[in-house]
């Protein structure tokens, strides 16, 4: 061997390069679930807009009841029902991710991932119950 650095081939015209199809996410269940999860952001965005509209309506005299009436339109009920399904899916995937991203040590010991997931779900249930209590009492 000479002392020269080896020369690597940067580009080889005979390599076969495959391209991913635009519909790569259709064929596999895991990919489809991933794309659906990405799509949930649209519905999360819609709920934010809907909530802001509700606050805007409540600030006007009589606006709150008009808003509720508008919300009872079947098309809007359908949109919100579908949105709820997607937002719940979003929340579940988020809580399942939490123990992967968070590694917590208490007293020099690693907290088990299942405990982190369970505490996230627990907090979700508590907050949901508290809001439900405020709204439905």
């Amino acid at each position: 061997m000479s002392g020269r650095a080896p020369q690597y081939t940067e580009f080889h015209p005979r390599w076969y390069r495959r391209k991913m199809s635009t519909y790569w996410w259709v064929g596999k269940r895991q990919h489809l679930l991933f794309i659906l999860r990405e799509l949930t952001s649209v519905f999360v965005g819609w709920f934010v807009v809907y909530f802001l509209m509700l606050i805007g309506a409540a600030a006007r005299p009589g606006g709150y009841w008009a808003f509720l009436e508008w919300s009872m339109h079947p098309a809007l009920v359908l949109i919100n029902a579908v949105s709820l399904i997607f937002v719940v899916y979003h929340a579940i995937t988020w809580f399942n991710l939490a123990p992967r991203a968070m590694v917590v040590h208490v007293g020099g010991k690693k907290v088990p991932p299942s405990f982190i997931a369970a505490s996230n779900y627990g907090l979700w249930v508590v907050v949901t119950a508290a809001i439900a209590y405020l709204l439905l009492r």
Partner: protein
Amino acid sequence: MADTVTLKVTRYRPEVDTEPSFQEYQVPRQRDWVILDALNYIKDNLDGTLSYRWSCRMGICGSCGMTVDGEPKLTCATFLVDYPPEVVRVEPLANFPVVRDLVIEMSDFMEKLPRVKPWIVTESGQERPLAEKEYRQTPAQLDEYKQYSMCINCMLCYAACPVYGLDTHFIGPAAIALAQRYNLDSRDQGAKQRREVLSQHEGIWGCTFVGECTRVCPKHVDPAGAIQRYKLSSAIEELKSLLMPWRAR
């Protein structure tokens, strides 16, 4: 159990073919055979021109990764009998250029890997003198990174990752998991140097957490987990340097 199974194998001979095609081979469907055994049977008995990589046959060398029935697999750890008795498809790993038949070109990864400095980095840049004795590490400190150290660079995670498939600038699951292997090592001081590479869009932020890398990893490294964990610590560091610029390291 059927006596033979058809192996539908990708052939690509760059000197004659413009694109890959499938070739079918009849191989014995032995209970104790892995896909690699069947390929070796073809090579030894049916067609000596078939090209593929392999070495250790025991899930350590990481050479024999291929796509089996659409899934990235180590062919030395994938049994024939776990597939339908009629036809099993064997293709090269996805997302990499094909050199020949089942052989892929992985110099893209070999160029990316050293960018994350997957070795112990010291602040001084010097090894500590031998007189100071060895670096001590407790079992708990070892546990912090051991999982990530199991990576064998088999490229299954890159083949499974649609982010890498769509944009090869993404530094990729294994490289980030290996960066975390050293970031979490109590002997290492190179986290800041690695952050410059990892905190880019082509680093961790390119990952959209499809999670396929973790599902296909034969060594249970959990690269997806490593990336999400690093996203959190990188965001915290970023916030810290924004709120306390005087403390920015």
